[in-house]
Every structure is written in C-alpha cells, then in structure tokens.
C-alpha cells in the first residue's frame, strides 16, 4: 500500500509501541558503543533487541577462526607438487581412490590459457611449450600467463558478476552512467597489478577516504553505486527508494565479500544465519550519506583528467528526474525500520558490524576511524566498515579470505570447495575440504593478500593438471567427483566464447581500458562491452550472461537451441567463419590442418580428415548445382563455421 511520509506511531500488537520512539534504542546503542561489549537487554521493540551471538553461532564453520594445519602426509607423495595436492590426495587415499595422471601438454596449455586469460593459446605457443624441456616449464608458463595483461581482463569480468556491475540505472529510463566504466578499468588494473585483496576490498568500500590521492582507489568506489536505482520517483517513494538503495549496497557488500545474505535481515532477523535485523541497520548506517558523484582524476593510462563515477560523500549530487520534486538523494540519519517499513522508524542506527564476526574480546570501537584532521567531506564510516571487514584477527577478515580463495578455486576447477560461492551461511553448502580451504586462506593472508601466488599454487598443483579420464569403479565411489579424482570438463562462459571466436579469426582488437561499446560487432574483448541494463548484449545473454541486477557468484550453464541458432545463422557468427577462412593462406588439406590448429590446438584426426574431405566435396557440389561461382570458398567457410561450432571449441578438458 502507499506509504505515508513521516514515522507513524507503531501500534501493532505484535510490536508494542514505544513510549518515546527513538530514545531507547539510541541509548542501548550508546551503551554498547561505550562498553564495547554486548549486553543482552530487553528492548521495548523486540525487533531490534541486542542478542549477542551464541557459542553455537560462533562455532559455525565459516565464522570460526582459521584452522591452519600442515598439509597431511600421503602415501603417493610423488604425485604431489604442493600442499594443495596433499590435502586432496589424503582424502582420496582415505577412500582408496587414486588420482589421475597428468594431462598432455596440449590439454594443459589450453586449460591454463582459458583459466587465466580467457583466450585460446596463440599460434606457435603450443610448439614452444612442447619444446620446453626444463622441469620448470609448466610453472614458467603459468608465470608468463599471470604476467599477461589479458589476465586482468579475464578476472575483472569474473568480479563484475559479483559486483552486479552495469553502466546504467535500470528501471524506467535506464539512464546511462557514462563514467561508470572506470570501475571496470580499476578491476583490470587491480588484477593485473596484483593489488592485495584486502586493499581491493577496502578501496571498493572507502577508497575515497583511505587513499583519496590514488585514482585507482577512487575508481574502486564505483562498486557501491553500481546497483539499480529508479529514475522516476513520486514523493511518497523518496525515502523507501533510498532505503532500497542502501539495501543494495549492504546486500552486495555482504554477498561479495562475506558470502552472507545480510539483506535477508532487512525485515526480520535472518532466519538461518545469526544476522539480527539490528546488525543489518547498523551496517546500513555505514552508507548513510554515501551517494554517487563524480570526481576528475587521471589513471596511469590516461593522458588527461577523466570524470570518474565514484561513490562518496559531500560531492555535488548527480542529476535525477525527481530533483524538481525535491528528491533529497540521501537522508542524514539511518533508522531501524520495523519490518523494513519507512513509516515504522524505531530510533537511529549508528554504525556497527556483524556481531558474530567480532571476536568476543574485541570492541567495535577498535575499527572506528575518525577523519584525519582537516578532512570534513566524508564521515569515515565506510572506512571503519572496511577496517572491520579485513581484520583477520578480530573482525571478518578470515571469512573474506575464505570467500575469495573459494572464488578462485571455483573458476579454475568449475566448482568451489564451497559450492555455493555466494553463500557461506547455513543455507549454503558445506566445504568439501574445509582444511584445504582454511590452508589456502592462510596462504593468501601470509602472502600479503596477493592473489597471483594463489593462482600459481592452484595451477601448479597436480590436481589441476590431472587428465579427465574416468572409470566405473571410481565413479561408483564418487560419481560427483567431490574428491577431485579427475579433471571435469568445463564449458566456456559467454565472454570466453566470443573472445575465442575473435581470437581464432584474427579479429581481436587488444585495446585496453576506456569507454566500452554496446555494439557486439566491435572486436575488442567482451569485458569492454558496455553493460546497459535494458540492452544487454544479445549473444552474451544467450550464453547465460547475468542480468547484472544482483550479485552472481556462479553462472548457470544452459544448453539451448537459441545458442545453436546463433552459431548457425547470426551474421556475426558467420563473420567469424569467413574471417577464419580468409586467414587460411594455404590450399587443400594444409588449410584445414591450420584451421584445426588455430581453433583446437591440434591436428585433425584421421577420421576427421575423411569427414572433412567428404563434406567439402559434397558441399562444393551443392553450391555448384545451385549456380554459385565461389562454391569452393563458400564450402570452406561452411567448414570453418562447423569447426567453430564443435563442442571441443567451447568445452575445455
């Protein structure tokens, strides 16, 4: 129903009215802030009672401190290349299962190129790798790939899903946010430069406060403001729309960094996780005065100052359609809202954090940061939040570390150690290898939160390098491969499919950074496609691109006839085949050998050679009979198109 302005007295019987509406909660909050510890105290409104987390809550696996043990001793030590392998093999051996041998070099090269770069190997790369005889050949290759600027583009795109990043506001007008793309550029640069992940987290929440001189830190704050926002608002909607926006910020923060559905606590205490509604509003409070704004700055790759869309405080408000109606953009206070209803305010919420992720000895005040002397533009509430979030010892840092190493595992192996990458709560899956997850999180923290060493650890492990062989015996024991006894085959994501098509047909434009394009015919990498919410790139959507409205940690991978139609009939798809055919300089059998090498990094097998020859003969005949003068060439284009439609092209072993 329509929501009236102002805060009506709450007279519902289930939530007794408070004598003096706002004071009691505020007093309790003050008491908590002063003492630094939580006291169970009855509140007049039960919705926002202070309820300290129980020992059982704290003992839930993802909230516990890291338990970092030594990699276990295993029987087949020869198989193991590093600690990762020992954790995996130990579990396999307990079940009497053997792990697979190493895949061949061609398979490994393709696997690693797609894993790290999202692109197929370049021509010549395979021969070079196969001729490399040093024992360090593989780890050298991994290092080379990690040093490639293509790595940042690949992994930036993964994070864009998590950040529900888009460049328009959604809703009725879906107005463009023309300077939002700098956030994507920040991601590319951050991954390439191996920005420590804890700083990566802090900058996205409060880069404008923590490193206001650093252009990357400013660009990073695009994270908070990337959500949707209505462009058309009636007066009655002003305040609830702002709470929706704050909800988007806090929900995305919770899911992206902590794997927790904090947003569920907006209207009531979380049903499954120890996240009281009270914690929710105190987290929301950190963003009270944060709004989208623009700052001119100059990154390394810029020649001059660029306007960057940031999320900050105290900046001039961006234009909004409802400005004429007096839309305030934000309010100076955040209130506890009974059932999330702006008419039912229950006192002001001051900044606070998730109690279950604060060690019992710690006081919230330890993360409170005041603005440095002379700094008045922002409140430093977000900086405080960022401090708690990345504090491994007393705050939420251990969970942040678990969540990100799991994301890395998920992308490299096709499934996380925790399968629900965005949900580390009770509703989520339990980790298949909790000891390995904690060990990896520990390695991350020990290495200064740098991700590249973790990538290296994963890719140089024997478990990553296994071949895909399966047998009935082991399938009976572990059909789902939860114990990782073989390498699962993976379908490429939308971007990697398109980028591979561009790359193989020699059309890929390697230009980095800067404004993107909505036009799929532009040949830059897919990470540079503009994400406009009402005009999501059609080919990307076909292959399970997210809608970029909410955080997505794992994409669906569907198989549909519409995908096949795109391979068969789309003008762009046909264009790839034509461009590939043009690239084949040689005549006859050599031509399709080259095509196979480019697309699949291998020669055609004998049975394939026969199929190809039969096909070309028949296809030429069909076209000649149809009166075409370029029958041979068209048949070759058709062959290239079929090659690009092969499962092997988009499924990586």
């Amino acid at each position, binding site marked *: *129903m*329509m929501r009236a*302005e102002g805060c009506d007295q709450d007279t519902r019987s289930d939530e007794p009215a408070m004598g003096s509406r706002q004071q009691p909660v505020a007093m309790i909050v003050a008491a908590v802030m002063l003492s630094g510890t939580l006291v169970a105290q009855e509140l007049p409104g039960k919705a926002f009672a202070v309820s300290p987390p129980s020992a059982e809550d704290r003992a839930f696996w993802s909230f516990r401190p890291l338990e970092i043990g030594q990699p276990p001793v295993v029987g087949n030590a020869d198989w193991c290349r590093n600690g990762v392998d020992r954790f995996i093999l130990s579990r396999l051996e307990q079940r009497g299962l053997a792990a697979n041998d190493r895949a061949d070099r061609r398979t490994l090269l393709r696997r690693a190129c797609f894993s790290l770069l999202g692109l197929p190997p370049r021509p010549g790369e395979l021969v070079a790798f196969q001729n490399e005889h040093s024992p360090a050949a593989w780890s050298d290759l991994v290092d080379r790939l990690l040093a490639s600027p293509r790595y940042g583009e690949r992994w930036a795109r993964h994070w864009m899903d998590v950040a529900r990043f888009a460049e328009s506001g*959604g*809703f*009725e007008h879906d107005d463009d946010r023309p300077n939002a793309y700098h956030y994507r550029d920040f991601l590319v640069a951050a991954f390439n430069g191996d920005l420590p992940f804890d700083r990566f987290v802090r900058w996205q929440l409060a880069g404008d406060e923590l490193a206001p001189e650093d252009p990357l830190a400013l660009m990073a704050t695009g994270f908070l403001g990337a959500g*949707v926002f209505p462009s*058309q*608002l*009636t*007066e*009655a909607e002003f305040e609830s729309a702002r709470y929706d926006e704050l909800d988007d910020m806090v929900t995305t923060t919770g*899911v992206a960094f902590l794997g927790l*559905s904090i947003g569920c606590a907006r209207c009531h205490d979380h049903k499954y*996780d120890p996240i009281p509604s009270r914690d929710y509003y105190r987290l929301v409070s950190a963003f009270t005065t944060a709004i989208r704004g623009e700052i001119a700055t100059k990154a390394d790759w810029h020649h001059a100052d660029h306007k960057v869309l940031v999320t900050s405080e105290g900046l001039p408000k961006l234009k909004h359609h409802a400005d004429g109606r007096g839309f305030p953009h934000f309010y100076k206070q955040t209130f506890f809202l009974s059932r999330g209803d702006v008419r039912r305010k229950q006192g002001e919420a001051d900044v606070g954090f998730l109690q279950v992720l604060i060690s019992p000895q710690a006081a919230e005040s330890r993360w409170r940061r005041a603005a440095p002397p002379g700094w008045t533009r922002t409140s430093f509430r977000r900086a405080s939040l960022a401090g708690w979030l990345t504090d491994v010892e007393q705050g939420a840092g251990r969970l942040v570390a678990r969540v990100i190493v799991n994301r890395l595992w998920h992308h490299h192996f096709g499934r996380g150690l925790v399968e*629900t990458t*965005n*949900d580390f709560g009770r*509703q*989520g899956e339990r980790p298949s290898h909790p000891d390995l997850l904690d060990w990896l999180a520990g390695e991350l923290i020990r290495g200064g939160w740098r991700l590249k060493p973790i990538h290296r650890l994963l890719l140089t492990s024997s478990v990553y390098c296994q071949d895909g062989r*399966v047998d009935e015996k082991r399938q009976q024991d572990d*059909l*789902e*491969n939860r114990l990782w006894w073989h390498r*699962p*085959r993976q*379908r490429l994501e939308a971007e990697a499919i398109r980028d591979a098509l561009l790359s193989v047909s020699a059309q890929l434009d390697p230009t980095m950074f800067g404004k993107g394009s909505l036009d799929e015919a532009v040949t830059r990498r897919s990470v540079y496609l503009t994400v406009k*919410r*009402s005009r999501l790139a*059609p080919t990307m*959507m076909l292959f399970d*691109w997210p*809608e970029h*409205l*909410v955080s997505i940690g*794992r*994409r*669906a991978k*569907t*198989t*549909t006839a519409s995908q*096949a139609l*795109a*391979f068969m*009939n*789309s003008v762009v798809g*046909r264009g790839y085949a034509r461009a590939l055919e043009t690239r084949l300089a040689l005549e006859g059998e050599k031509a399709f050998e080259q095509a196979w090498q480019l697309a699949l990094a291998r020669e055609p*097998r004998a049975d394939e050679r026969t199929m*190809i020859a039969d*096909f070309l003969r028949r296809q030429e005949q*069909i*076209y000649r009979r149809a009166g*075409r003068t370029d029958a041979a060439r*068209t048949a070759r284009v*058709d062959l290239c*198109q*079929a090659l690009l*439609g092969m*499962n092997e092209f988009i*499924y990586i072993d």
Partner: protein
Amino acid sequence: MTLTTESDRSAGLLPRRDLLCRAGAGFGVLGLAGLLQSEGLLGREARAAGLGRRALTPLAAQQGHFPARARRVIWIFVNGGPSQVDTWDFKPGLVRRDGLSIKTFDPEFKNTTGFFRNSVGNLMASPFDFAARGECGKPISSIFPHLGSHVDKMAFVHSVYTESNNHSPALFMMNCGIPRMGLPCVGSWITYGLGSSSQDLPAFVVMSDPKGRGLPKGHAANWSAGFLPGVFQGTHLRPKGSPINNLVRPKQMTDLAQRNQLNLLRRLNQAAVSDQPAAGELASRIESFELAYRMQSAAPEALAIEREPGHVQALYGIGDKRCDHFARQCLVARRLVERGVRFVQLYSGGNENQRSWDGHADIQGNHTQFAGETDRPVAGLLADLQQRGLLEETLVVWCGEFGRLPVAQTGKKPGRDHNPHCLTAWMAGGGTRGGCSYGASDDVGFKAAENPVHINDLHATILHLLGIDHEELTYSYNGRDFRLTDIAGEVIHEVIA
C-alpha cells in the same frame, strides 16, 4: 545459485531436517532429483550449474504438484493502468457523488496518492454508459461491446491492490511480485516450474506494442528471469523484421548446404562424445543444433497467421484498422499456445501517457482508443479458444499494473491519475469460475474494500490453477529460497470453478 538440496556427502541421502532447513528445491526438482538419483544420473557436477541435469534440457516439461486446471497462460497486460470505474467496476456511488470533493468520502485522502499533486479534481462519474451483459447480468462499460458478450467466461476480481503508484515499480510488482527490479517474472517462474510442451518454440513469449509507442516502463525487466537461468526469460518477439534472432540461415547457404553442414558438425561432435565426464552435456549440445534446425521452420510457421482462414482472421478483427495490430498478436498468441508454448504475454499500449492506458489527460478519449484497439481482438481470442476446446486449459488474464483514481485529474479534458489501492483483474478459462465477481471496491471505487487481494494472492491463484503450490515453487539464490509470492500469497478459491 543452486536449485538442489545438499545431499549427505557419502550416502546421497537427504536428512529431513536439512531438507526443511535448506528447503531449496521446488517440487520439480525434488521429484527430478529423486528420479535421477535412482537412475544414478544426478552428478554434483551437473547440479553445480544451477539446474542439475535439467541444464541440459532446461525446458523439458515437468510435473506440477497436483493436477492442473490450466496448462498454459495468455496474459493480456493492459499497460499504463486501466481505470476500474470506467471498465468493469460500475459504481453507482460515484455517479451519485459526481462533482463532490473526495474528502467528503475519504477525509484521509492525500494529494500524493496519484502521481501529480497539483491537479487533483473532484470525484468524477465515468463518462461511459454501463449496461448489464451476459447471463450473469454484469454491468459493463460501453467501451467493450465485444468483450461484454463474454462476461460469463470471466472471473472478476474487483479488490486487487498493489504497492506502488508509479509505473515501473508497479509493473515489476505485477510481473515479479515485488515492486523492485531484479526478480524473475511470472512467466519465468512458470516455465521454470513446468518447462514447456513445445520442442521447437520458445517456452515463454512476449509481444509488445507494434505501433512504435515504445516498451512498457522498465522494459525487458518485465519479462526477465532475474536470478533464474536466462533460458527462462521471455522471448520478446520483435514487432518489426525477423521476430526471433538468428532464425534465418546465412544468405549464401541453401537448405541442403546447411543440412550437409550440420551433418558434418554432428559427426565431428559425435566422434568426441564418449563416456567422459559431461558426456550428457555434449550430447545435449549436439541435439540443440537439430532443434535449432527445426526451429527455423517451426517458428515462422507458428507466426504465419496468414494461413488462418478468412473468417478466423475476421473474428479477431484483422483488417479492422482500429485494432488490426492487436488482433494479429492475439491470433499469434493462440497459434503459439496451440503449439505448446507455456506462457504468452501481450502488452496493450507502449510507454506512458497517451501511448498506453495511462489516461492522465482525457480519460474518455484515451480509454475509448485503447479499448477500441483490444476489444474485438481479445473477444475473438476468447471465442476462438473456446471453439477449439482450448479455453478449458488456457488461462487468460486481463489486468494492468494499477488502477486509476475516482477523482478527475484536472486539465483541458479530465483524466484520471494512478491509483495503487484498487484495480480490477479478470481471468477466463483454465479452471476459473466464469461469470463470478470476487471482492469489491468501496462506494466510489477508490480502495479495495471487501476481500482485498494482494498481487501475491493473484500470483498464488494463477500458479494454483497451473497445478503449482506457490509455497513450494522455490529457487535458492544467495542464501535464500525465493518464491514468486515472496512470503505471502493466498489462493483465491472463490474464483476457481
């Protein structure tokens, strides 16, 4: 984003408590999971994709929770907010109070109820005459001469209310169950729940205004799959040019050449399929090319309304300049559901103001025009569905995103402003009780007064008719089991036959 329940690691058992706690798993999935587990097919690997083995054939038909009354839905979305008191909800009280201030009726009335605060006029009787129609004798506005003769097929709900007085949030509310962007819409939920009975057509089809008046507010988010896999989103038939992407083969190719090429592709792909992991996925992709090949002819065939006999075309009003465009879409809708498409949504009108039923200025002219565009086509659709025996299992829904105020919006010609407190929806066919009226608005048609029906209730009822328990159709996403009906929804049994 998983749809499955966690299984006991070793035994593959689902402890009851875990099951309840994690809930997850809509029926189809539990059922499917059970089935596949017994056949030893359900790999964790496949489940990780979010749909389990269904990711390979995500649109395969699924069983509901209980026997369905309706198998498919055609939703006439009366875009812009049709006025209840000028269409289906005759209010003698409004006639009596014509010209009085609404404060005489409701002292609490606020200027912010509508969209414009400075043009709130007095109570205004409908400019249209109402006459009793059908055996039920329901008074119907003169703007629906054809639809009026079908009132005995319609179950009216006069007490629907919504949560926003603004187009796009209200559109999202009506389509997705909450007034925000990002949730799956009804059509997506239904195709996720039931799959499709068509092998070579999209399961969920949307048609928008073909007269260049734009898309409904919020655009494609209205037929978005939200966090459900993209395969469940509505396929928007483009009003101009080729209606579906990539349906026409490259112009260099002949049919024979494409067939030969697909044969090659099939052989190349089959040579590689073995008992390796994901073999099912690979086989499914091979099959998808065959399906695509068939779609190239099936989709144009389904859309070829010119193949209908003249009298059928005339029944819908094809050839009548006023309504030809909508008549064509209604006929396409029938051809689609006839061929197994699960959910078809048609938008009457484009964007806001004079481009849709958004009659801020000149309610009389606006509603005369848009009723004129749709009256004959929708009546023709109902008649045609019935004569083919399709109506029994086809649910037809008629409603917009909100209603309109009983007061005039002042201006050169009086209009009416948005009203979230009350709207009329009707349903026909698919197991509904024709000729009944449920709920009532107050004396002037301002607010739902008797048996108020929330949008969640309306959705629950639609799902129920399709054999789906709205509380069981869930999708687990980021730690929460989402439903179309959020945490509410009561089935309105009174409108079910």
